[in-house]
């Protein structure tokens, strides 16, 4: 399916002596769209392939963004508008095979003619950790255990946050590091953005439900970027949100569907048991199986964390060991929007250099 954003349809199987070089971008999140927007569209044919019906990736699901709480739509609109009209966007498309032959890449999409291109960008992003895997937290079993993604959806749809019984929650627990920094689930890495997302969401709950008590259970608060620490201060000073350093060990359901959580307060050195009306699990990033499948077809390398590896983590972080294949955005691991956009712009420059000079590094 071709999306309304693109309005020209070049022939897909090309005679390359006469035609412009073609770049195929896989993934229409902010990373993929930014690459498409940053490349000179008069010099190259640009095709963006997105598996969902609409582009936008995860950001399309978020309501307001940290740290300033500007609407996510503003950023999304900016990135979408930055793409020239002649970028062809194919949505609802699944790649069946992809292979490289003599510096050309041939992609087969389900039920369509093959597409041939000179460079491929993998901008397939990430998946969210499946919280059901932390069985002891009871996601998918206890009614009032939800994820940060679901909370964003509630905000996004302008709904009121209620318990599964339709009551206004009086006390909410926010659980950090769900599926990240956790050897038990096999993910040692930090997902970087969930701490600040948790702080942002706590404030947003307070704005919506001023009477609600909020307890955030964290391992460390990783407020690494500009204005993050300030947001954390605001959460405590202005909104009275409680931050307790301790990891959740288990959650169980009380009669009446409130939850009992067991954790510890490592600063006071005491185990802690608390009743809350609901808990919000800050789910982390995981590499997507689709990305892994495409990476296998292209012979790309993955790191120990399962995310894709670039040629060099410092000075060649967008090219790969396969000339003509580039990586951008969260396909390489957890990243916020600022970093994703900067990374995507760098990717565009590298592709351009590659297609003009043949140098991929």
């Amino acid at each position, binding site marked *: 399916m071709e999306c309304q954003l693109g309005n020209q349809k070049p022939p897909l199987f090309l005679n390359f002596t006469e035609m412009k070089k073609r770049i195929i971008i896989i993934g229409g999140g902010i990373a993929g769209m930014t690459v498409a927007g940053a490349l000179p569209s008069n010099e190259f044919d640009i095709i963006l392939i997105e598996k969902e019906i609409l582009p936008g990736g995860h950001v399309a699901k978020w309501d307001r963004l940290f740290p300033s709480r500007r609407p996510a739509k503003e950023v999304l609109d900016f990135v979408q508008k930055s793409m020239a009209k002649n970028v062809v966007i194919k949505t609802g498309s699944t790649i069946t095979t992809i292979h490289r032959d003599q510096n050309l890449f041939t992609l087969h999409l389900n039920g369509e003619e093959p597409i041939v291109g000179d460079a491929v960008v993998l901008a397939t992003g990430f998946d969210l950790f499946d919280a*059901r895997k932390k069985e*002891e937290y*009871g996601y*998918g*079993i206890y009614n009032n255990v939800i994820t940060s993604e679901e909370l964003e959806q509630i905000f996004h749809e302008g709904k009121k946050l209620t318990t599964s019984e339709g009551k206004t929650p009086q006390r909410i627990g926010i659980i950090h590091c769900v599926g990240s920094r956790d050897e038990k689930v096999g993910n040692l890495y930090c997902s970087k953005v969930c701490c600040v997302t948790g702080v942002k969401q706590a404030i947003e709950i307070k704005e919506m439900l001023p009477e609600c008590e909020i307890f955030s259970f964290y391992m460390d608060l990783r407020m690494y970027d500009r204005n993050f620490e300030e947001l954390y201060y605001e959460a405590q000073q202005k909104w009275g949100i409680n931050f307790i350093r301790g990891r959740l060990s288990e959650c169980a359901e009380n009669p009446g569907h409130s939850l009992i959580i067991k954790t510890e307060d490592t600063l006071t050195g005491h185990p802690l048991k608390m009743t809350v009306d609901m808990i919000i699990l800050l789910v982390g990033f995981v590499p997507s199986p689709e990305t892994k499948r495409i990476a296998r077809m292209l012979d790309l390398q993955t790191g120990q964390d399962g995310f894709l590896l670039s040629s060099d983590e410092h000075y060649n972080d967008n090219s790969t060991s396969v000339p003509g294949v580039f990586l951008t955005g969260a396909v390489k691991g957890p990243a916020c929007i600022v970093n994703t956009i900067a990374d995507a712009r760098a990717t565009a420059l590298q592709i351009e250099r590659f297609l003009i000079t043949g140098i991929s590094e």
Partner: protein
Amino acid sequence: MKIEGKRRIWKDYQKEIAEDRYFYVRSCVRQNFFPGSERTFLRIMKDELNKDVFENAAHTTCSGIGYHSDIVPFETVMTMVARQFALMTESGYENFTTSCITSFGLYTEILETWQHFPDVELRVREHLKKATGREFIVPKNLSHASDVIFKFRKEIANKAKFKLINKHTGKPIQVVEHIGCHYSRMFPSKGVGGAEYPYVLVGMIEDWGGEVIDYPERRHCCGFGFRQYLVQANRGYSLSCSKKKFDSMAPYKPDCILTNCPGCPMFLDRWQYALSEMEGITYGENGQGIPVLTYEELAGMMLGYNPWDLGLQVHQVPVEPLLDKIGIPYNPEQKFLTLDGMSIGKPETPTFLKFY
């Protein structure tokens, strides 16, 4: 509670349980605690299900309690377990079934260790050979006896004379299930249903007509916890663990507690008596306790075995209220008689716990 969430997890944790020809090893403590249980297992397996279950008289303790109390070192324990495997091999069996949960956990831990460190297995083989001249093959299938009853739960349901239904209300009997820690907490994939929402007892309860209670302290320790009981000074801790569980389950009005470990029924049963004497608290209706059963006892009850043949008279919390609810007949006159009619003596009447 979304039951489909639990069902999804249960699907993820299926395990292979042998169909027949079991080499059965008893527990070193269960026959004192609940003397009818192992006998009932053998009776069901042989008489009802026509299975080949073999016991070897040379079998000894696995010393799991010593191991988990930091008294017996792992090397020693592994060699003792290797000897049990040798007994199985010499008897011509390949499927090893344990009565005890701690043994099951220990056997699982040892087999996993050997799988990851084959040199350790070789060393243990050498130790065993030097000490006893014996050799062994590693079991083809390792199961706990509750796995086996779980496997045949539908066959038992088909032969059952009773269902877990309250005959006065027509409603399912409400059951609290409690799994021994060493069943699947160390190796979730080795237990039916995993570690967080184990299915092994739930499957029996559901197929026999009852309903399972999910209460907040479901995962909490039964009160045994090894050193919290074995070290005398810690026993208050043991008692408080059990109390925490009773306090948490009581609002759901359970009709009974079902267990699959030697220690859990012991502590959940005996500590109800201790708590009633110390605090005057009882957790059932009208001064009754909450009867605590082993899965073999429950299977035997469903099959219509005489409650006194199952050993229910040695429970500290009387089981009669449950028998009455289900409609299982029993003769109070025979409660404290041996099979040949001799008196086994009558316990003292508790101060608060209703006695039958």
